[in-house]
């Protein structure tokens, strides 16, 4: 949570599709809430579950991983492997008390600037409604 307790969203964006999509959102001035902090990775397959668990361990409210649509990956198979890892990790984290909604995976292509803005806005609103992480 940042000072005015609006949620901190950490975004891992793949360089070839989603990061370019986020750039496209910029060039077409598609506004979205400023809660997200974006990290560039070569591929969604490069996003290590260790990094995601570290984010949640350190108290982050939400993590977004965005990659190419299946079939479009610049490295052919990166998002396929990522998809399996994140599906399993998300279920494990949910089981351990981190709501499934806090860890979101989206496929966003280089031409989907508007969609990137929509996803980030939706995600931020959802996290604001969900509120801070509750541990008894």
């Amino acid at each position, binding site marked *: 949570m*940042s000072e005015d307790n609006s949620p*901190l969203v*950490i975004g891992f964006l793949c*360089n*070839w*599709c989603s*990061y*370019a999509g*986020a*750039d496209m*959102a*910029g*060039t077409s*001035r*598609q*506004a*979205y*809430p*400023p809660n997200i*902090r*974006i*990290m*560039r*990775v*070569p*591929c969604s*397959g*490069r*996003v*290590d*579950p*260790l*990094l995601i668990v*570290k*984010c949640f361990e*350190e*108290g*982050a409210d939400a993590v977004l991983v965005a990659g*190419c649509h299946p*079939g*479009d*990956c*610049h*490295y*052919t*198979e*990166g998002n396929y*492997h990522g998809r399996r*890892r994140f599906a399993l990790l998300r279920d494990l984290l949910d089981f351990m008390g981190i709501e499934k909604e806090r860890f979101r995976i989206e496929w966003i*292509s*280089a*031409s989907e600037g508007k969609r990137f*803005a929509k996803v980030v806005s939706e995600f931020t609103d959802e996290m604001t409604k969900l509120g801070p992480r509750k541990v008894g």
Partner: protein
Amino acid sequence: MSRIGVFVCHCGTNIGGIVNVPEVVEAAKAMPLVAYADENKYTCSEVGQGSIRDAIREQKLDRVVVAACSPRMHENTFRKTVATAGLNPYLLEIANLREHCSWVHSDSKKATAKAIDHVRMAVAKVARHESLFPKQVGLTKRALVIGGGITGIQAALDIASAGHEVVLVEKEPSVGGRMSQLDKTFPTLDCSACILTPKMVDVAQHPNITLLSYSEVKEVRGFVGNFEVDILKKAKMVDHKTCTGCGTCWQKCPEKVTSEFDLGLGQRTAIYIPFAQAVPNKPVIDMENCRYQKYLKWTQTEEGKKPPECRICEKLCPTKSIAWEQQEEIVTEKFGALVVATGFKTFDHSVYGEYGAGRYPDVISSLQLERLMSAAGPTEGEVLRPSDNTHPKNIVFIQCVGSRDDKVGRPYCSKVCCMYTAKHAIMLKEHDPEVQCYVFYIDIRAGGKDFEEFARRAQDESGAVYLRGRVSQIYQDGKTLKVLGEDSLIGRPVEIDADLVVLATGMEASEDADRLAQTLHISYNIYNFLIEAHPKLRPVETQTDGVFVAGAAVGPRDIPDCVAHGSAAAAKVIGLLSQDSLTTDPLTAIVAPMKCVGCFACKAVCPFNAIEEQTTRDGRIIASVNESLCKGCGLCVVACRPGAINLRGFTNQQLLSEVMTLVRR
């Protein structure tokens, strides 16, 4: 102790307008290991880059963070800048304050806070950067051009004339693409075949060009300078080495089939060349419809009697070139560069129920009209109504069919239809002075040299009636087609009894362009048009080094633009192949031998087979990376539980430090 320099850019007002740049500079000064922070109006300008070079020398900086626009814009620019100041180019990190910050947030306070965070992350990451040194890799000085339309032909000719070997792959039996189906071309009205056929012949005869017609690209491996491509050569059933193209076979072949080239208006034989001036001018056999193939495939269970054995072409062929045993074949070739020029196809107007959904034979597409007007067409140039072969007098054109129409998912303008409809109006009047053309349009778009004058000529000299409005319905009333529309300039409904209706169908990406794009790892938009690296600054390059795109495959484009695009792509290829070696991207994976337990999970996930097995002195079998194959995706790093393999440029340490500086602020 590192000395990091942070350079925050105003980018005119693009960043400075929203983000409080001085505040970011002050914040940067307080960040660990930051020895110097400054701001620039335009960091990418000569002045801006100069200030970085001076600061590196004066402040003895060993790492640089540029907080400006997206790294996808100027990462290479600033790498060169720091390199000229004697710093290893990879000791640099870019913080994205424009596309990801100032351009998408209006709240200045929050945007500035985000900008500071992005700088904090860049500083934390660059602190863990190490010097990296690109390698020199040899390259194959051969180019592959995919698509034998005018764009592909132009690209192939230009590359070949620069002395490089070119392989031109064309899916159809002949090169020529859509242009070979045209009669005349705007705005000069010169005959399409006359200007195209010589170039087709040049391609076939050029010593440096290998033409693989009736072939498709199946798979592409490797990377810039060292592509390995599997090309499927479909079975032609005719030995093109011995065949002289005398024509006996396709004149005598008894099986008549609707011709795809003539868009269903004419017929061709089972053994055929698509059109008279086809290059190569040698036939292929259509396996689906050849009577002998049906004879071979006939089994007892099918009802009816056994089809005739035929084989007339084989009997009559003077050079015994019919080769029934010919099989499709996959050849694998090496290339340094690829040009994708797969062109376009016209919109299928049968989705428009209001225009008859393809049920009315006299409602045809513009390309079909081209075939009717073409001297080599099914009616030898006489414009006849497909229903009863009579001469049409009232001809109605409907513009924007499958363009500028959200209802059918084609909101874009196809750029060329207004011009070719004007051409049709002019030519039809010349063919038959009694013809009266009507054109229903939304806006006439004639932006090009001599284009507006040409469109004006269709109205003034050829007497075409231009009606601004859309057609609500067409229905068949006996022999005539009733066209119900509206003339919005006089605000009244209009009804025309038409003998022929021509739909100006828009341009679409060619068949399964998305599958080819996936094979080449280049991106494509929702209409399957290929996405260029930058719409303004890099129109013929793609995000994938060594893969270039040109022509209508990238978006609606007329012939002059396609030819220019083809030459542009060729220029890029020639520039690439003129080097003797290529510098590879050093952002590849690297193994720490002492940590590897030899489980080879990395080898299982590597899409590029870049992981090799190596035996250590103490007999352990561990992984090692073939750096010329590794593309730096990082899949292996995540699969490696002990963290024995790391990815330069995006190491575990660098990514973790970015996360830690973010969550612990």
